[in-house]
Structures are given as structure tokens and as C-alpha cells.
């Protein structure tokens, strides 16, 4: 049982990091943050997991194929929001078309949340893909090799 303290700490921290990422994701229009930061924080939770338990274990949680699909889904979600507003009769990414009768620009809120979700998914999966591919190339290194 190597690095017991690190493993226990990671297990305790893992869920709060993801909750914080979701908070940053959905609270971006009220406080600092948004999709980019949330995506990175979300990815960091899994990178921490990979550091402590090894990449093989993390790959069982999220396989690389799922990440590559998520990368595409994120970008398509963002662009799809723009296409949806066009189909509703507005401009590309003209969010006011989502709720045209709203007096307090609810459409803008919806649009920003949808778009930021696309950003978050794309950033998180891209960061994890890059991490997977960089670390997956070399077998485990020795403790003294640092």
C-alpha cells in the first residue's frame, strides 16, 4: 500500500472538487468563473485520481473513447445552440429568441448556460485527453527517477 495518505486525501477531495466544478460551471453568470474554469477543475479531479491510483484505474472510470466523443459533443453543443437560435428565427447565437416574451432576458440566461455547458464539456474532455495521451506513453517511473 504505497502513498496511503495521498490516496485517502484524494478520495476525500474527489467529490468536493467535482461539486466545486459544477458550482463554477452553473454560477458563471453570477460570479467569477464559467465553462473554461469549470472544465479545467473537473479535469483536475480525474488527473488527481490518475496520479494517486494510476492511469489504468482512471481509464476504467472514463475511457479515452468517451473523452474523444465528449470533445466533439462539447463543440457541437455550443454550435448547436447557435443553430437552434437560427431555427427559432433569430441570428446565430442570438439568445433572445429562446424566450422572446421574457421581460428580463431569460433567453440570454438560457443561452449563456447552454453555451457554457458546451465549453465546459469540451475543455474538460480535451484536457483529460491530452493528459491521458501524454502520461499513457511511458510506463510507471521509479520513485528515485524524479
Amino acid at each position, binding site marked *: 500500500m504505497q502513498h496511503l495518505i495521498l490516496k485517502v486525501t484524494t478520495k476525500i477531495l474527489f467529490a468536493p472538487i467535482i461539486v466545486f466544478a459544477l458550482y*463554477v460551471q452553473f454560477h*458563471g*453568470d*453570477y*460570479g*467569477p*468563473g*464559467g465553462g*473554461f*474554469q469549470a472544465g*479545467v*477543475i473537473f*479535469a*483536475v479531479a480525474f*488527473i488527481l485520481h490518475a496520479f494517486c491510483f494510476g*492511469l*489504468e484505474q482512471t481509464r476504467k472510470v472514463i475511457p*479515452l473513447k468517451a473523452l*474523444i466523443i465528449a*470533445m*466533439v459533443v*462539447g*463543440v457541437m453543443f*455550443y*454550435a448547436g445552440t*447557435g443553430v437552434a437560435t437560427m431555427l427559432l428565427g433569430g441570428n*446565430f*447565437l442570438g*439568445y433572445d429568441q429562446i424566450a422572446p416574451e421574457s421581460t*428580463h*432576458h431569460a433567453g*440570454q*440566461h438560457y*443561452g*449563456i448556460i447552454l*453555451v*457554457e455547458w*458546451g*465549453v465546459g464539456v*469540451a*475543455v474538460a*474532455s*480535451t*484536457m483529460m*485527453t*491530452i*493528459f491521458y*495521451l*501524454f*502520461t*499513457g*506513453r*511511458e*510506463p510507471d*517511473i521509479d520513485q528515485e*527517477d*524524479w
Partner: protein
Amino acid sequence: MTEGYSYEVSPILLVDLSLLTMLLVVALAMLRSRHLFAVVMLSGIYSLLSAAFFVSLDAVDVAFTEAAVGAGVSTVLMLAGMLLTARREKPFESRRVPIARLAVFATGAALLYATIDMPAFGDPNAPANAYVGQAYIEETPGDISVPNIVTAVLASYRGFDTLGEVIVVFTAGLAVILLLGVGSARGGREVSDVDGEGS
């Protein structure tokens, strides 16, 4: 040089100065170190310090990004990249150094000279704050009604730019997939260089 605005000496200034001094010290330490692991860790510290400096400049969103991306993920990716190479930087030949040093000092001096003409920090009449910035601050409550103006600019006013940024991130991931390959050392398709000739 603008009228009606003066910068008061406050405790904040001391915080700023100490943060900038630490940034300088960390940067010099990074330059001098040949141990790549130490350089990666110092670059993480550098990012964290600049995040603190951005907070003191009231740019919380930028600070947040710098802390998450610069100090967090970049450090991890640099460590992962370091695993693929040697742990120590090769000693460099010092023949070309005087020219390089001269160029660096000349550029630095030019930049320092240019700061004399810059408007004071937070000057409302500065070009960066006066035209578009002011319009965003005035129009956001009526146009978007989102409390965080940064998000309103990023996701709504400049939603098209942000789409481009997401595609840049996506392309970076795609490039890494193409270069390092999904079929890597651990599992996946094995690639041999010998058979690839002629095809």
C-alpha cells in the same frame, strides 16, 4: 498624465510590490535552474503568484483562470511532458549569449520606456476603459441582465469569439490525438515503423 485622477500610496501598493518582487525572483530562479522538475514546479508557483496579482488588480475572472489553467493543468501537463524526456536540461553553449542578452535588454528597455506613456491603472479615461468597456458596463444590465459582465461579454456579446476559442481548444486536443496516437504503448493498436515504407 490625465487630470482629475491620482494614485494614492496604500497598503495595496505594498502587496502589489511584494507580489511583483516574488514574481521576479521566481522568474530568475527558473532561468538559473537546470533541473526540469524544479522549473515546472516554479512555473506553477509563478502562475499562482500572478493569479494573486490579478486579484489585486480586481480581475477575479482572469485570476481564476490563471489559477486553474496556469497553476493547475499546465503544471500537470508539463510534468506529463517531462516524463517523455530527460530530467535535466542540457548545458548550453555560451557563444551566442551576448547577442541574445543584448536583444533581451533592448526589448526590455523599450517596453519600460513605453510604460511611461501608459495611462494610470484604473484611469476611467484610458482608451481600454473609455469606449467599448464603458458601453458594456452601461448596456449589460439592459441587454443581458446578467450580474457578471465578464460572462455577458464572453458568452453573449462575443459568443462567436468564444465559439472560436472552444474550437481552438478542440483542435489542440485533436492535434495531440493525431501526434501521440490513440494506439499508444498501453493497449490499442501497435504501430511499427518498418512496415510503413512505400505505402
